[in-house]
């Protein structure tokens, strides 16, 4: 839930704003003075709605003070003054948007949404989402390649790097037969004419983790005369 801080000393307007923003699903807090706003703003609000004519510090000085302190909370200034110089003064102080009273409720809400949307984009650009987990799921089984774990139902089996690589290579060629020679070349990087039965040992171990009945495999199938094949 997005948190909105409303700074407005006219109690009627403040309560009307609170009612509507709460109806829009925001978490709203109202303060009456610029000083209180400066104090409250660091409590993780997403948007600031700031009146200009406040007792004590006015909205313009609150705004420039916040920006001066490196507090870049998206801010909508709200005021009865609509001279171009007042609007410019608001933007100069560091406001992101400016709306004059009386305002249209729908436009106010749309502008707050706009500020929240831009904030979300900005946050996404600065902290990109973590890459999707490197895992493969089939049935009640899953292979987590980044943590080298194989989950079968409730059981967790640790894999060695090589076991994981063999499994990944087979999964990448799901449904197709893969020759022992190809596996040696692509998983181990060996091109010599090596004994390929080493691979069979890996398969046996993997089957022990993976198959309900290792003697009658359902996922790691032997392809006679070629190698192995993975099916889901």
């Amino acid at each position, binding site marked *: 839930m997005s948190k909105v801080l409303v700074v407005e*000393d*006219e109690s*009627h*307007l403040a*309560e*009307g*704003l609170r*009612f*509507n923003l709460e*109806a829009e699903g925001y978490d709203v807090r109202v303060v009456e003075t610029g000083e209180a706003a400066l104090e409250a703003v660091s409590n993780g609000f997403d948007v600031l709605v700031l009146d200009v*004519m*406040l*007792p*004590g510090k*006015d909205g313009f000085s609150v705004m420039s003070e916040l920006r001066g302190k490196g507090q870049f909370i998206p801010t909508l200034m709200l005021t*009865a*003054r609509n001279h171009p110089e007042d609007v410019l*003064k608001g933007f100069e102080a560091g406001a992101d948007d400016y709306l004059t*009273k*009386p*305002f*249209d*409720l*729908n436009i106010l809400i749309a502008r707050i949404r706009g500020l929240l949307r831009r904030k979300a984009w900005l946050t996404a650009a600065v902290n990109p989402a973590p890459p999707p987990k490197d895992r493969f799921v089939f049935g009640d089984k899953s292979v987590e390649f980044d943590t080298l774990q194989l989950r079968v139902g409730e059981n967790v089996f640790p894999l060695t790097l090589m076991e994981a690589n063999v499994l990944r290579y087979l999964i990448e060629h799901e449904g197709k037969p893969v020759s022992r020679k190809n596996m040696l070349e692509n998983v181990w990087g060996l091109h010599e004419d090596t004994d390929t039965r080493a691979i069979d040992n890996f398969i046996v171990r993997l089957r022990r983790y993976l198959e309900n009945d290792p003697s009658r495999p359902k996922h790691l199938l032997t392809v006679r005369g070629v190698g192995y094949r993975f099916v889901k």
Partner: protein
Amino acid sequence: MVVAGRRKSIAFFIALGAGLILVTLLLYIGWVLLNWRHGILLFLGVILTLVLIGGVVLNTIFLVREIRRNAQHDAFINAVTHELKTPVASIRLYLETLQKRSVEETKRQEFYRIMLDDSDRLLATIEQILRTGRIGHSSRVASSPVDLGSVVEHCLDRARKLHHLEQGSLEYQPGPALTVLGDPDEVGAAVSNLIDNAVKYSGHDVKVKVETSEVDGRFATVRVSDKGPGIPKAELKQIFKRFYRAPGPLATRVKGTGLGLYIVRSVAKRHGGRAWAESDGPGRGSTFVLELPIAPRGLK
């Protein structure tokens, strides 16, 4: 920013005036050195120099005053803009809310009450502005006998309703029955302004006392005392000027147009009376007095 700009221009014009006076004096010294033998020329020089200096001084005073008046006018426009637009914004917000959302009955009643309050506030501001215009234009005042006691009671009722006050926060000590000669509407407006101010500046803890009394058998006074922030000595007279609002944080906390006390003073003058403020200084409350002549016996 604007205030700094204004101070700069005031300083500039004062410096310009002083500079011009200096130039005039230097010219005069030159004139004396050239014409010290001719008495009549020296005499003419003195007259001319004094006239020039007087002109420069007058001009500077006029300019500075005009700049100050401009500043007050700007502040007034700002205050009036705020006082007119805020209630409209609030009424509009609640109307849109009722139109846009389904609101439960108790909330709905609360919204209606808020909107009525705001329309009262709007009307009060409009009346204040219109009254200022009327008072400024004609000096004639409709005179009929006015029962001061009932006017004050009417004003008290209005204030209690408008500010949602309990009986105890707004106390009334009636004096003897007093009749003044004048316009009941104007007298009522003046008394209401005094009461409104006292309530507004009291903040959350309203303790206002209104008294009427007779002075020397010739004047009727209405005294309105509050326990509010008080008034510095230097401001006691200033606050009755049109558009004037005492500088400082109080002016932003308490909203107003700067017309109320001007109306009070104008009404008092039009009725042949006076209005003044008394205060022991900041933090010690203040008392506002409206003094009006009692109607001659034959007219009561």
